[in-house]
């Protein structure tokens, strides 16, 4: 603990300096207590998949100026630092307020009228598609958009652009879990609400740093612990939640399915399976049983690098618990066998009969705010609204009818986000519109991504800050934040919640809906895009989803405003929603059974060698969200975690703050060391929120899961070496379009490393 005399330091900014707000946030000349005519607007956080309820504080002039906790069912007043600071981006000085345009990338941007930006965009769409066909133009959406807008993105691509190339950044998030859920259960969502965690007797968390990525969900974990539940955490790093677990399985990244197969092996050997449940509610058990014979605990110990006894201990702890539950996130999903990893967890839950009851079940924790809803209504390349398959003739006919076009006019399935970048490199895709994404930071193998985008003949981006990707575009449309529009999102529980409008957008800013509808009008299909606002879009979405597994028909804005949210499927206006799936063991396959799938482990895509003997794994920090386009501009969050680092085990001989060169087959970079015993000795960890030249994704591999097409962010081969001096550590670049604040610059260019693993370099310690 620090010496108490450390406290006598100027960490409190002198009056007038307002350090934290000068580093990005509220204008320095205002403070909340000066606001008059305050009212509270109930809404939800714009960030992760927990979707905490909050009030935005709005002053008499109609401007958002603060946040107040809200006693919503999901979070019960709790907020994490991202949620507390989110409001600061609404009136942030970096906001884009006029369209930007340049005809070549060598020119600087100039502010233009909406008319010029829109007509240039439409002329480029027409030119490129006229010369190279409809599929030469692509659209990339995002999973932080309201569901209404994700529906619009899918419709705009297929009806206005008539291209098959549409995908979204949820491809980098939860698609492995979605694929596994669909295969096993015939439905694509978590099986239980968060509140069911409170009832469990054994909670297994795999590949999820709940404390940093979903902090508010921790209350459910601790709530279960208060009741005496056992906690098992599977993670190569000792995270804050792993620290308090009954068993922390620090396995090698990329070996999860060996571990879960071995657990099932022990469960079968010990006779702990729930044979009655298996017989009544599953198919494929004989094959699974046969497969896991090849995965005894000894093999798991060898492959995963963990004690054999730990495998046996965890298997018995999980299988003998009265009620057991498994939750997982990107740690097991960001792999070339992401779908298989998830299936191996499902096999374990089903074989022990742990499905469909409070305290018994299975869930995946969505990363992005609308990671769940973002893919349900047609933004994903292979899906139509209501989770319908774009390859199914009947599904195509149903949607074509709602959209008022011929089934033959609907394009076929497109490719995934990373594959679209490769197509850009091959000039198969020559024009692109992107919204709500920042692939320059978030996609793996930065060099390839930059090459792909640089090859584009035309690139437009919709955003409210100039992201690294938008800075590479020809046209940038300034659009609204979440607080300036209304719409729904589905959180990790598939609970649909409504975000409410708290203020009017700044002058010059339009909604994403307006921009896409106006482009559609200019492309000659305006009558199919007559959506004045989100409500009209939502009503069409409800109709388009009616009768499907993802049924939203019974959910209305009014119902959402009167409740704490409604979980889909919700087929009628009287239906209460479906918070818990699989009650009575019944799934959404036509036979109502769990379709168990065999899982065979294969090594990660990037092979180890003498040159690259160690494992690099990546992840989030609590203060930042995804590509950091938003959070890297908010002073309090920048001060909390100003820069990335490389986490290394003390056995490598580094001291805290040493410059370490991290080298993979894609590139290298020098980062300050954060030396901690909280990581496996054969692993290093780099957080991924920063752009090149301190981008973890300049190092990661762009290998994809063959089914979900999710990149393998969580494991690649790496070596580390000592760099000559701290001078080699590059400062994190200033975000594009950043309003200059001398003090803020100084805090970011300081080459000093973070001081602590969790919380990672605090304002208190400068």
């Amino acid at each position, binding site marked *: 603990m620090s010496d108490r005399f450390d406290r006598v330091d100027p960490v409190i900014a*002198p009056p007038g300096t307002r350090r*934290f707000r000068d580093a990005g946030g509220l204008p320095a000349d205002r403070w909340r207590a000066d606001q008059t005519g305050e009212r509270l607007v109930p809404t939800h956080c714009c960030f992760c998949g927990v979707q905490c309820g909050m009030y935005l504080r709005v002053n008499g002039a109609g401007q958002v100026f603060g946040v107040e906790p809200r006693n919503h069912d999901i979070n019960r007043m709790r907020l994490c630092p991202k949620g507390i600071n989110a409001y600061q981006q609404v009136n942030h000085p970096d906001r884009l307020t006029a369209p930007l345009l340049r005809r070549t990338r060598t020119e600087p941007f100039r502010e233009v009228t909406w008319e010029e930006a829109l007509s240039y965009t439409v002329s480029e769409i027409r030119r490129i598609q006229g010369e190279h066909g409809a599929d030469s133009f692509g659209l990339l959406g995002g999973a932080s958009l309201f569901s209404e807008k994700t529906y619009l993105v899918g419709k705009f691509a297929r009806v206005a652009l008539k291209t098959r190339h549409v995908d979204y950044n949820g491809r980098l998030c939860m698609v492995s879990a979605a694929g596994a859920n669909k295969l096993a259960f015939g439905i694509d969502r978590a099986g239980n609400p968060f509140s069911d965690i409170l009832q469990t007797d054994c909670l297994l968390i795999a590949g999820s740093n709940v404390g940093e990525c979903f*902090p508010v969900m921790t209350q459910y974990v601790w709530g279960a612990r*208060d009741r005496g539940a056992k906690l098992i955490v599977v993670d190569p790093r000792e995270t804050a939640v792993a620290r308090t677990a009954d068993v922390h399985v620090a396995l090698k990244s990329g070996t999860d399915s060996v571990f879960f197969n071995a657990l099932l092996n022990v469960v079968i050997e010990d006779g702990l399976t729930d044979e009655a449940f298996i017989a009544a509610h599953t198919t494929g058990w004989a094959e699974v049983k046969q497969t896991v014979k090849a995965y005894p605990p000894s093999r798991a110990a060898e492959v995963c690098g963990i004690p054999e006894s730990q495998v046996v201990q965890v298997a018995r702890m999980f299988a003998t618990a009265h009620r057991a539950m498994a939750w997982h996130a990107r740690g097991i999903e960001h792999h070339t066998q992401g779908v298989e990893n998830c299936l191996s967890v499902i096999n374990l839950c089903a074989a022990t009969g742990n499905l469909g009851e409070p305290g018994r079940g299975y869930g995946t924790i969505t990363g992005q705010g609308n990671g769940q809803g973002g893919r349900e209504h047609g933004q994903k390349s292979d899906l139509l609204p209501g989770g319908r398959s774009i390859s199914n003739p009947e599904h195509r006919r149903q949607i074509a009818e709602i959209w008022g076009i011929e089934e033959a006019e609907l394009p076929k399935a497109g490719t995934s986000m990373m594959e679209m970048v490769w197509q850009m490199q091959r000039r198969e895709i020559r024009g692109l519109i992107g919204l709500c994404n920042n692939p320059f930071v978030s996609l793996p193998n930065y060099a390839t991504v930059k090459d792909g985008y640089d090859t584009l003949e035309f690139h437009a981006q919709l955003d409210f800050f100039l992201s690294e990707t938008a800075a590479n575009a020809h046209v940038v449309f300034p659009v609204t934040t979440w607080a300036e529009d209304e719409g729904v999102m589905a959180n990790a529980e598939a609970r649909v919640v409504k975000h409410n409008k708290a203020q009017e957008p700044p002058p010059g800013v339009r909604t994403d809906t307006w921009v896409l509808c106006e482009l559609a009008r200019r492309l000659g299909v305006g009558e199919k895009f007559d959506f004045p606002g989100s409500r009209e879009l939502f009503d069409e979405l409800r109709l388009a989803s009616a009768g499907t597994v993802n049924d939203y028909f019974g959910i209305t804005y009014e119902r959402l405003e009167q409740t704490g949210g409604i979980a889909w499927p919700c087929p009628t206006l009287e239906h209460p929603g479906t918070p818990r799936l699989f009650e009575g063991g019944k799934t959404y396959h036509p036979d109502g059974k769990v379709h168990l799938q065999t899982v065979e482990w294969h090594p990660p895509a990037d092979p180890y060698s003498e040159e690259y003997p160690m494992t690099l794994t990546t992840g989030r920090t609590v203060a930042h969200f995804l590509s950091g386009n938003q959070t890297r501009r908010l002073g309090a969050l920048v001060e909390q975690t100003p820069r990335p680092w490389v986490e290394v085990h003390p056995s490598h001989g580094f001291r805290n703050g040493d410059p370490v060169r991290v080298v993979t087959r894609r590139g290298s970079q020098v980062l300050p060391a954060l030396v901690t015993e909280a990581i496996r000795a054969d692993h290093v960890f780099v957080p991924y929120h920063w752009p090149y030249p301190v981008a973890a994704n300049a190092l990661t591999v762009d290998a994809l899961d063959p089914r979900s097409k999710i990149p393998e962010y969580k494991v690649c081969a790496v070596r580390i070496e000592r760099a000559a001096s701290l001078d080699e550590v590059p400062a994190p670049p200033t975000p594009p379009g950043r309003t200059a604040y001398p003090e803020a610059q100084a805090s970011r260019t300081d080459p000093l490393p973070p001081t602590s693993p969790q919380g990672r370099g605090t304002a*208190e310690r400068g």
Partner: protein
Amino acid sequence: MLGRTIFIDPGRCIGCQACVSACRECDSHRGKSMIHLDYPDEGHSVASLPSVCMHCEDPVAPCAEVCPADAILITADGVVQQADATRCIGCANCVNACPFGIPKIDLDAKLQMKCNLCYDRTAYGLAPMCATVCPTGALFYGTLEELQAERPGVDVSTAFAFGPVTVHTGVAMVVPAEQRTSVPGGLPIIEVNGRPTPGNGAPA
């Protein structure tokens, strides 16, 4: 008997600093956080510990006792306020006197600032901002009964030994499970600075 107060449970802390951000948002602190987050086991584990003012009761507020300007006031309900801006001379006596290392000095303004238990909120029945938002309940605001109803078997201590002096506080600390060994009389033991200390607010 403890009234409504903050209970700190470091075992639940995930180091997210939501408390730090929330404290900045509190109207009475106007953009400045009064919470420290410490990392007691750096390099070995990710353990973290939020520190708020403990609102010392016996001896009453050492910070206030040593204040030469009588700037630190204590309310009837035991809340030790931050320094009165019209009286504080920024001498830092309070910083040196505090056994928990809580008060901060704004050197340029010559003004002490510290956690005042969000008096602007608690006076209206609201919980302090830090304890309201804490995602894990590492900071809990309420009564001991409310805490124990939510967390069966939890024990707390309001007595902390610093050398020969034991300080009794208005804010309570949850006793780690491994130290909840009963002693004659049924009191839990918490070890502070190597010295066993009886908990539950009982005299040392």
